[in-house]
């Protein structure tokens, strides 16, 4: 039996082959034991501080917002080692891997950011990483493939299915089914079967905790809204977790609308998807009427996933968090604007959150404080953006 709640309302659960249940139970137990172990927490905190560079800064934008009633802050996860928030939870799970006496790590990656974070943590902690990546993504993301290999990870291209992130997850789960005794599956987002959504949230919750402390210091009050992009939803749940019990703080998740939620080319699962099961959890997914999973699409590879973390599905259903979608075009505009006005090049993922926050800022009539989780930096996206925008900057 489980020691923790496995579901968020009707969402979540453990829809995996019976074979994987003991491995998930072992992980839940290791997570709970570690939580109460001062030496684990000390090592995790010291890695976050001295290796990854926490706490990250919070920056008040100077030129971005024209509405004088609005203060827009950026939580600077882009400054974290590795270039995105992902390093937080990867360090936590890598420590859990060692704690369980396992020496190998299996991971999936789409654009390569989780793969890079996994590779760096495994290099640091002496673990052997094998990372599944869709064959199409291996081609599209050559620099990240090189980064992973440089840090000693094995990158395994996946040709099955559509050759993208969801197929990489499938293949990672298949590998884990055969090798759970020796390997940990280091899932990259707050999705998948219990206990992953809970573990990933807890290992990212310092994003929101630091934000609370920083905004209290600067403004003496809580923000009116925190805004984060949502693919699988790890940076968003990390930002939201500490504010869920603060009803005055709006929680806003921004999904990828791609070419528009009325087209087939988007990844906005809460805004435009339906309930179903993918990768071990009951949540909002993209599927046809037969229950076959459909491909998602977004200009930003990190948001290009046809499911979403089950806690987001729950927060949406109970009305605690709002979920909206921003198109490729809106994200690209925000991407350019932040570079031009503030000298910060954001990840295309985070640009979705920023795009919606700018709309909120325009519409605000009262004094308003908004914090955008700038979950990653945009260096990884430059080649892609050059192809799209060319000289049009």
């Amino acid at each position: 039996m489980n020691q923790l709640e496995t579901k968020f309302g009707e969402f979540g659960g453990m829809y995996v082959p019976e074979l994987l249940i003991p491995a998930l139970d072992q992980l839940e137990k290791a997570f709970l034991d570690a939580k109460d172990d001062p030496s684990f927490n000390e090592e995790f905190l010291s890695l976050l501080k001295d290796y990854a560079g926490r706490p990250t800064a919070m920056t008040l934008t100077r030129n971005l917002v024209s509405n004088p009633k609005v203060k827009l802050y950026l939580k600077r996860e882009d400054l974290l080692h590795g270039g995105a928030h992902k390093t937080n939870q990867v360090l936590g799970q890598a420590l859990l891997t060692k704690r369980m006496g396992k020496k190998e790590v299996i991971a999936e990656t789409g654009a390569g950011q989780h793969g890079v974070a996994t590779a760096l943590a495994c290099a640091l902690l002496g673990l052997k990483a094998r990372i599944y990546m869709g064959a199409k993504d291996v081609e599209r993301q050559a620099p990240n493939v090189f980064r992973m290999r440089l840090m000693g990870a094995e990158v395994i291209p996946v040709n099955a299915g559509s050759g993208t992130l969801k197929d990489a997850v499938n293949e990672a789960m298949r590998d884990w089914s055969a090798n759970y005794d020796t390997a940990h599956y280091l899932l990259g987002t707050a999705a998948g079967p219990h206990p992953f959504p809970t573990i990933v949230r807890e290992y990212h919750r310092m994003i929101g905790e630091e934000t609370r402390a920083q905004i209290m210091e600067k403004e003496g009050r809580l923000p009116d809204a925190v805004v984060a992009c949502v693919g699988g939803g790890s940076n968003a749940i990390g930002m939201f977790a500490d504010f869920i019990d603060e009803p005055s703080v709006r929680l806003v998740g921004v999904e990828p609308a791609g070419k528009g939620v009325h087209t087939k080319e988007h990844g906005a699962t809460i805004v435009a998807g339906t309930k179903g099961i993918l990768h071990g959890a009951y949540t909002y997914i993209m599927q046809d009427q037969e229950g076959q999973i459909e491909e998602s699409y977004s200009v930003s590879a990190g948001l290009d996933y046809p499911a979403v973390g089950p806690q987001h599905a729950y927060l949406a259903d109970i009305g605690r968090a709002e979920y909206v979608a921003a198109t490729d075009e809106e994200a690209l505009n925000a991407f350019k604007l932040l570079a031009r006005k503030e000298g910060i090049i954001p990840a295309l993922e985070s640009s979705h959150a920023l795009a919606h926050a700018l709309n909120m800022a325009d519409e605000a009539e009262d004094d308003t404080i908004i914090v955008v989780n700038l979950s990653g930096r945009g260096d990884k996206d430059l080649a892609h953006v050059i192809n799209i925008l060319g000289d049009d900057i």
Partner: protein
Amino acid sequence: MDRYADMFARLDEKNQGAFVPFVMIGDPNLEQSEAIICQLIESGADALELGIPYSDPIADGPTIQAASIRALSHKTTVADCMSLITRVRTKYPHVPIGLLLYSNLVMAKGIENFYATASDAGVDSILIADVPLREATPFQKAAQAKGISQILIAPPNATDETMEKIGEFSTGYTYLLGRAGVTGAETAANVPASELIARLHQHKAAPSLLGFGISTPEQVKAAIDAGAAGAISGSATVNIIAANLDDNDSMLKQLGDFVSAMKAATNKG
């Protein structure tokens, strides 16, 4: 009517174990798939495991994944699968027919509705690869209401708690996993799995059929010698389909030969 109990009783009288082939409905297309299924029965299959194709089969290796892709390339639907089963059921009233599929296909139709449709088609059992005991209750209730056996999986790493629950809830048969990992003939099953089988007996579980990595008559014999009630062979069966995609007649003949050889290995003693 309990077709599994009847089958196990018949086989006991003949001092035989069961041989159960698996194929994906709609592979390589619906028409040939129906011919394949009839051929399996005519060649001696005691029961059938039939897959409904799914886009993201996490418990399957490359062979069964490819079968799903072939079936989905013709847009095979759940309704297509159910009408095929209805026709097979009319032709063969006594052969137990099991479905093996993934949870989202059931959820998309609604659990109760899916089980009602399956029952109308003449399905005897349903195994959902990504529904472990812990999530099984709503599916078991729907199965029970429609007289369908909800098949449970006994994995090689099963805890005593899992074994107890299998003893309490299993009906029809128990799917005994020959090894860890995903489906596929590339990695052989660990037979004899006699220790697991003994534990299942001890918990009074439904008769066990050994699956995952069963591709030769020797493995079928070893499974039955170890105390299993029979063996299931999926990837080895599907490999014959994959190897003969340009020759339907040869495909049927080779499938027939394969099933006959596997069935011959079920004689005890």
